C-alpha cells in the first residue's frame, strides 16, 4: 500500500515537473531545424561572400535571395495597413519591382560582409511558425566594431513545414521593419490609398532602374 502510494506520488511529481517545464520553456524553445536551415544558406553564401568584387557576386546573392527569401510575404508586410488597399493591377506591378528592390538592398548590405564567414549561434521561437535565428561573424578582425554584433534571421515555417527567410537584422534592428516605415510613410505623404501606392511603385521603379 505504502509502496503504491509513493509510486503514485512519484508519478504526480513527474507529471508536475513536466507541466512546469512545459510552461517555463514555452516562450523560448530553440528550433534546430531552423538553425540548420539558416546555416545551410550561410554555408552556400560563404564562397560568394569571399569574392565581393567578382562578377558572380551579385548573381550569386540574387540566386540565394530568390531561392530562400519569401519576397511576397515581405512585400505585403512592408505595405503595412495599405496591403489591403492595393488593386490587382497594382499588385501585378508592385511584386516584381519589390523583389528587384529588396534583392538590391540584400546585395548591398551583404557586400559589407565580403570575406567573412557567418555562423549560427542559436535560435528563439516566437511560435512554431516564426523563429529568430541568431548568428555572428566567425573570425572578425581584431578591433572590428562589429565583432560582437548579433546578426538575426527571421525564419517563417509554412503549414507544410517549408521554411523561408522573412527578415534580417543586426542587434535588434530589422530591415523589413525599417522598409515598412519608409513605404507607409511614402504612401501616406502622397495622399494614401491608391494614389499613394502608385507613388510608391513609381519610386521603387526609379530606384531599381538606377541599379
Amino acid at each position, binding site marked *: 500500500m505504502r509502496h503504491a502510494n509513493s509510486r503514485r506520488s512519484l508519478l504526480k511529481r513527474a507529471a508536475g515537473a513536466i507541466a512546469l517545464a512545459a510552461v517555463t520553456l514555452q*516562450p*523560448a524553445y530553440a528550433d534546430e531545424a531552423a538553425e540548420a536551415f539558416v546555416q545551410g544558406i550561410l554555408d552556400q553564401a560563404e564562397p560568394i561572400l569571399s569574392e565581393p568584387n567578382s562578377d558572380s557576386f551579385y548573381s550569386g546573392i540574387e540566386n540565394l535571395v530568390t531561392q530562400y527569401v519569401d519576397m*511576397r*510575404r*515581405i512585400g*505585403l*508586410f512592408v505595405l*503595412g*495597413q495599405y*496591403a*489591403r488597399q492595393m488593386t490587382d493591377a497594382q499588385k501585378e506591378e508592385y511584386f516584381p519591382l519589390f523583389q528587384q528592390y529588396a534583392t*538590391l*538592398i540584400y546585395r*548591398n*548590405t*551583404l557586400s*559589407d*560582409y565580403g570575406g567573412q564567414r557567418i555562423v549560427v549561434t542559436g535560435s*528563439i521561437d*516566437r511560435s512554431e*511558425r*516564426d523563429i*529568430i535565428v541568431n548568428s555572428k561573424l566567425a573570425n572578425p578582425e581584431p*578591433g572590428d*566594431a*562589429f565583432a*560582437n*554584433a548579433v*546578426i538575426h534571421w*527571421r525564419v*517563417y515555417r*509554412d*503549414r507544410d513545414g517549408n521554411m523561408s527567410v*522573412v*527578415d*534580417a*537584422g*543586426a*542587434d*535588434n*534592428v*530589422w*530591415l*523589413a*521593419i*525599417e522598409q*515598412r*516605415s*519608409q*513605404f*507607409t*510613410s*511614402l504612401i*501616406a*505623404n502622397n495622399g*494614401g490609398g491608391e494614389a499613394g501606392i502608385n507613388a*510608391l511603385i513609381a*519610386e*521603387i521603379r526609379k*530606384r531599381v532602374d538606377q541599379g
Partner: protein
Amino acid sequence: MKLVLSIAAFCLPLAAAAQAQITGAGEADDIAAELETAPIENAAEADPWEGFNRKMFAINDSFDSALMVPAAKAYRAVTHKKQRKGIRNFIANLRTPVTLVNDVLQGEFGRAGKTASRFVINSTIGFGGMGDPAERLGIEQHSEDFGQTLAVWGVDSGPYVVLPFFGPTTVRDGFGSAVDVAADPAVWIRTEPAQYFRYSRTGAGLLSTREPLIEPLADIKADSLDYYASIRSFYLQSRKREIANGRTDFDDLPDIGDFEEFDELE
C-alpha cells in the same frame, strides 16, 4: 547589416556628443501647425511632428553634407586608423562618469561596477583612455544616458523629434541629453582652458563619430526611398535595444503579416 549597426551607432552618440547650447526645438505653435494626421499602424513609430521633423532633418542633412562629411574625410586623411581608434577610446572614456551615474540611477550595480573598473583601468594602464585594455580583460563597454534612465523609471518616450544639430531623438531622450550635458562639470567652468577643452572634445567627438559612417550613411541615403523614414526607424529600433540593455526578447516584434491571414491574401 553593418549599415544598420552603423546607423544605430551614429544616431545614439550624436545627441550625447553634441555639446552645443540647446536651441529651442521650435515654437510650440509651429509644431502644432505641422501635426500630421496620417494613420500609422504601429504606435511605436507614430510621428505626430513629422512635418516639423522633416524640415529639421533636411537642414541637418545639408549641414552634414556641406560640413560634416568633408570634415570627416579630412580627419580620415590626416590620421591613421590606429590613432582614430585611440581618439574614439579617449572620448568614450571621458563619457564614462555619465554612464556610471546613470548605471547607479537605474539600479544596475553590476554594470556600474564594470563602468567604474573600465574607467580606472583605461585611465591608468590605458594611457589616459587612449587604449582599451579593459575590453581585453573582458569588461565590455556599454553606454547609458539620462534618457535611458528615465525610460527605466517608466517615463514614456513621447513623440519622435529631430532637433537642429542634435539630430534624431524623442522628447524624453532629448531632455535626458540636456540633463547629461548639464551634469558635465566642464559646461559650468567658465575659464578659458575649460572652454578650450569643451570645444575640442565636441569637435573631436563629432568627427570621430562621423568618420566611420561616411560610406554606410551614403549607402543608406542612396538605397532609401525615404531617407527620413529610414533614419527614424533605425533610431527608434536601436534605441529600444539600448534601453533594454541588449536584453530584449523578441516578443514585441510585429508579426510579419498575421501569417495565416497573409496566406489567404495570395
